């Protein structure tokens, strides 16, 4: 049995107060908090072995190189990648998605081609395709989202017909919806398309196995999984990476440079131009260790229970005053709850909650096309992680009534 109270105590931010009240952090879908151990791992790196990697032959340079390559192996194991050379470090998920679009897409997409995405994508999985499409002239097709928060897959074959890539989130950052990636991968492959999976919301919360998923690309971001900001991950099958042209040019990614041209380094370094974020890789590795010690199945179980509790509590307490978007079954969703409360604008909801130290996000959550489909300009969003517990939900439910009091018409 996991001692969730002990886990909560590992997170120094949660010992802070905000506006005089103890901090209740319900915005992990935005960025997660970091256990002391992750913070210390990075400090320790800078205090003991900081050096540039892959370039120096001296002692700390070797140790720093081992640190980043060790982190790469840890990441690979965490998602069950066949080889660590399939793991590319980027600065965040957004850069990783741009890398896929510009490098793979730039080489493979042209007029007459199509890329399929869904209405529930984060802007990071929309804008790179818009940018590339306006340059290359391919078609961007959209899988619709149904009222129940699930993808409308009724016309999937039609959408995939002639498509070269399906790029889709494994879990919605607004609705919490878990998408049937394995089924989508099979459908994409049946149509000769590849599948890129945006795991930014999934990898931090559920055990991930790229091979079982049938994914060709997986994208995620360190800061949402207890790791630091400034590091993201692109995983792709080796043969795909091998065939892709480079993305950014500079040191590390070359084998040779002359005045006339250059040759590229091996994967994954081919895609890692310039000095990499070694401390952040060390922090991400420490975060993975931390999650592995709890066990991703325990993490998931905790979140399903807490999500169920939240859905139940908010409904019991606020009834028709609250509209919670997304699947109603906790097992079909992650711990992300978007809601609209009693005609109070989400920004005002967040403001009222903030006065009690409760951190929730209000807005479009970088998913404007989805909000347009939902027919709401903005929502309030609660997103849970391992350091949350029922008392956080209770305080949330309690404080919402204050918003009602101020804004009742």
């Amino acid at each position, binding site marked *: 049995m996991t001692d969730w109270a002990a886990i909560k105590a590992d997170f120094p931010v949660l010992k802070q107060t905000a*506006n*005089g009240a103890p901090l209740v952090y319900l915005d992990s879908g935005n960025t997660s908090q970091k256990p002391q151990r992750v913070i210390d791992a990075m400090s320790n790196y800078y205090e003991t072995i900081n050096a540039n990697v892959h370039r120096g032959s001296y002692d700390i340079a070797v140790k720093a190189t081992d640190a980043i390559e060790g982190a790469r192996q840890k990441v690979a194991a965490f998602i069950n990648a066949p080889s660590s050379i399939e793991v590319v470090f980027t600065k965040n998920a957004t850069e990783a998605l741009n890398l896929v679009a510009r490098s793979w897409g730039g080489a493979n997409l042209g007029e007459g081609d199509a890329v399929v995405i869904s209405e529930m994508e984060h802007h990071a999985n929309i804008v790179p395709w818009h940018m590339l499409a306006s340059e290359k002239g391919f078609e961007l097709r959209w899988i619709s989202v149904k009222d129940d928060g699930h993808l409308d897959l009724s016309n999937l074959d039609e959408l995939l017909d002639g498509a070269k890539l399906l790029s889709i989130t494994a879990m919605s950052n607004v609705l919490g919806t878990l998408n049937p990636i394995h089924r989508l991968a099979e459908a994409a492959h049946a149509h000769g398309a590849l599948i890129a999976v945006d795991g930014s919301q999934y990898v931090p919360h559920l055990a991930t196995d790229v091979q079982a998923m049938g994914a060709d690309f997986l994208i995620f971001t360190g800061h949402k999984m207890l790791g630091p900001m400034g590091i993201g991950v692109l995983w792709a099958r080796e043969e795909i990476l091998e065939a892709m042209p480079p993305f950014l040019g500079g040191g590390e990614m070359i084998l040779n440079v002359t005045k006339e041209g250059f040759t590229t380094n091996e994967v994954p370094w081919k895609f890692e131009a310039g000095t990499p974020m070694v401390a952040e890789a060390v922090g991400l590795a420490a975060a993975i260790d931390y999650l592995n010690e709890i066990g991703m199945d325990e993490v998931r179980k905790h979140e399903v229970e807490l999500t169920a509790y939240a859905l139940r509590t908010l409904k019991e307490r606020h009834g028709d005053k609250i509209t919670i978007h997304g699947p109603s079954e906790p097992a079909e969703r992650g711990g992300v709850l978007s809601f609209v409360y009693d005609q109070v*604008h*989400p*920004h*005002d909801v967040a*403001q*009222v909650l903030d*006065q009690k130290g409760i951190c929730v996000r*209000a*807005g*479009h959550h970088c998913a*404007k096309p989805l*909000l347009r489909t939902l027919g709401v*300009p*903005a929502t309030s969003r609660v997103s849970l992680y391992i350091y949350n517990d029922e008392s956080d939900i209770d305080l949330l439910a309690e404080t919402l009534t204050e918003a009602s009091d*101020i*804004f009742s*018409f």
Partner: protein
Amino acid sequence: MPGLEDLYREIILDHYRSPRNRGELESPPAVKTEGFNPLCGDEIIVYIDVDDDGLITDIAIGGQGCSISQSSASMMSAAVKGQTVPYARRLIGAFKGLMSIHEGEIGGDGSEADMGIELSIDSGDTKLGDLEALKGVVKFPVRIKCATLGWNTLAQALDEASPIT
């Protein structure tokens, strides 16, 4: 520590609940401009009719957003309706000055704001007084962009309706 009562003054809530000049104007002839707050998704649409004498003969406000962006736009509409374009421009400057104190601190550009102009510029219109109620917003820095959204949108509309020569 600023409290919610600094932000949600009664007069603000009143404008939020009963927005003035809410609606649309036919465009053209009206000038229509849209403003977005990319952070929270708030949206203000400003329609203005400006006559040949540079008088803002009519104004209407569309869009959606939080209590601050909506009430600020509502107050703004009441304050500039029937006024001249130069007056409206000065008022925008004055209002942004009021709001710029913190924005300047966190990296926004407050320098353009005309800090010299008092909000109580000569006008019999008591609506100007209402604007003072928005002063509390300055204590809630993220909400400043909500409060100024309508004003920036109006500034754009004025530039279109009556370009500075």
